[in-house]
Every structure is written in structure tokens, then in C-alpha cells.
């Protein structure tokens, strides 16, 4: 009797967990906003030229997230928004990495030129 009662109780608990987990997701307004912010930030970096594919992917997913939001498919909206955010973050990180590499390469070149000039300065008649 006691064990049967426990069985019923645990089944009820299980179904309650399932209900909370699946059928009433929160409206992912915050996730969509974060995706938009990440895209805006990536747009300001060199991403439009240095990581156009990732940035385009982020934009498309952010649009899909908004569509899903309007159709009240919160689960889908949340996933698209989260993916759009990481895509945009990756686009920005790649762009920043590219720009830092370019700066380093330019500096190396400048140093080479300076060294070259200095060396030629010694031998040339003045």
C-alpha cells in the first residue's frame, strides 16, 4: 500500500517535470535582443568583409528567430536566437583576429623597411 502510493507519487512528479520542461517555454525576447546586439557589434567590426559568411548566417537566424517569435514558437525562436548570437560572436572574433594579424604584418613590414634603410644608410655616400 505504501509502495503503491509512492509509485503514484513518483509518476506524478515525473509528469510534472515533463510539463515544465516542454510545453510552457519562456518567451525568448532576451535571447533575440542579445542576438541583435551581437550582430550590431559584429557589423561595427571588420566582420562584413572578414567574416561575411558567419555574419550572414547570424542575420538569417535572427530573422528566423523573430518569425518564430511572431508564430509563438518560443522553443524554435530561442534556438535560432542563441545560434544567431554565437554566429555573430564568431564573425566578430574572426574579424578582430584578422585585423590584429594585418596590423602585425604591417608592423613587420615597416620594421623591415626601417632596418633596410638603416643598413643602406651606412654604405651609401652622403
Amino acid at each position, binding site marked *: 500500500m505504501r509502495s503503491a502510493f509512492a*509509485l503514484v*507519487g513518483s509518476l506524478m512528479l515525473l509528469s510534472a517535470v515533463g510539463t515544465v520542461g516542454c510545453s510552457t517555454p519562456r518567451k525568448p525576447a532576451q535571447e533575440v535582443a542579445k542576438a541583435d546586439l551581437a550582430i550590431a557589434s559584429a557589423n561595427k567590426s571588420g566582420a562584413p568583409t572578414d567574416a561575411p559568411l558567419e555574419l550572414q548566417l547570424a542575420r538569417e537566424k535572427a530573422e528566423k528567430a523573430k518569425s518564430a517569435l511572431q508564430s509563438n514558437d518560443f522553443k524554435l525562436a530561442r534556438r535560432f536566437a542563441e545560434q544567431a548570437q554565437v554566429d555573430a560572436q564568431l564573425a566578430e572574433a574572426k574579424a*578582430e583576429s584578422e585585423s590584429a*594579424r594585418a596590423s*602585425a604584418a604591417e*608592423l613587420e613590414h615597416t620594421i623591415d623597411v*626601417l632596418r633596410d*634603410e*638603416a643598413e643602406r644608410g651606412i654604405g651609401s655616400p652622403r
Partner: protein
Amino acid sequence: MRNAWMPLALAAALAAGCATSPNTNLVNAETKLHAAEANPAVTAHAPVSLHEAQTSVAAARSSFEKGDDEARVDHLSYLAARRVEIAEAIAERNAAQQDVKQLSKERAGVVLDARTQEAEIAREDAAIAERQAQVSALTAAALAAELSALKAEQTERGIVVTLGDVLFDVGRAELKPSALDDLNRLADLLAKEPRRAVLIEGHTDSTGTAVYNDELSRQRANAVASVLTRRGVAPARLTTRGFGESSPLASNATSAGRQQNRRVEIVVLDATIPSVSERSP
């Protein structure tokens, strides 16, 4: 009470059992993570991002282990894989930014070296200029000594060297060997001033006819010019003239005066001649 958890454990076991086939997206995320973890650049330059990626991969793994639906595992694996890529990109960015800092220092060093070197060169230039100044001072002193040995005079026309009549036999235009010392000295002097034109003017006393004296003075001037030419002075620089008895220095009434009047004057003009290569044919 222990029995109460039995069905829950059973349900979990069943759920896990259903999801045993591997999820390729999860495997992909985990493979990427392992590569990033093995990359020293990532562990050194993006430890925080790498940690986030690790947490994200673990969440995807746990979702898979829990038996979540494939779409959710796929989604979490996608996020996890992206976070690994972000960590790698941030590691590259940070490494490159570190390079930029290092290179900026290096450039500053090179610029400093160049300035030091320029200062060094300027110092050497100054030393060379000083040595040259010393040398030209010596040269000027030597020149002055030469000129004084030649009894040269600085006049308005230039430097005038007078060769007395003792250098010629009476009535003759050939130079005595004793004149050659002075002329050699003069040729050396002229070699140091290669652009200055030289006038060679012959003079006589009033003994004999004016025509004879004109001719004799011209011949003596020419004799001096030919010696200088043989000593390497360019003939183009030399102009000879015979003044005869027309420009006496002293009275012809005394023997001492006449001796003074018999002379060849060599004038090193302040005016320069164009160098040979500059002259039109």
C-alpha cells in the same frame, strides 16, 4: 522510501537506452574541443573562452546522456562547436595583438637605433670635417710657405711671382738650371689650383732696341711657359705676353735698377678658366 525512486531510475535508464546511437554534431563539437585543448596557443591566449566552450560541450554531452531529443542535442552541439571556434579565433586575435605590442617595441628600437646611427654618422662627419679643416689649414700654411719661398706677392690681379734676370743669360731666352727649382715649386702650386688662369709676362731693361726687347721679353715668357707645361700645367691656362722695356720697375739709369727691370712676372689670376671638358670645341 528507497522503493519510491525505483520507477524514476527505470525511466531514466529507458530514456538513456533509446539514445545510444551517437550524435554526429556532438561528436563534431567534442572533436573540435579536443583539438582546441591540444592547441597551446588556445590554452595560453584564450583560457576563459576555452572554458566556456568546455562548459558548452559538457552541456551538450549531458543533454545527450539524459536522452534529450535529437534537435536539442544538435542545437546544444552547434552552440558548443561555435564556442570552440570562437575560442580559437579569440586566441589568434590575442596572440596577434601581443605580436603587435612586441613589434611596436621592436620598431621603436629600430627607430632609436637609426637615430643613434644617424648621430654616430653626424659625429663621424664632424670628425672628418675637422680633419679636413686641419689638412686645409696645413695646406694653406704650406702654400703660404711656398709662396714666401717664391717671394710671391698677393696683388689685386692675383699672386705675382717674379723671376729675376739672374735666371737668364744676358740676351738669351733659355732658362738657367738655377731657375728650375722655382719653376718646379710654381708648377706644384699651380697643380693645387687647377682652375686658375696664369699670365706670364716678360720684361726687359731699356738696353737695346725696343723691337729687340719686345721680342726678347716674349721669348723669355714663352720659355717659362714651356717649362711649366712640361711640369704638367695645362697650356690652356697659360697666356704669355712680352712687354719689352715698357713697364720698368725701377730706373734704367743704374745697373741695380736695370737688373730689377729684367724679369718675368708670373701672375696666378684670381679668375678661373673653365675646365677643359666644359669648353665648347
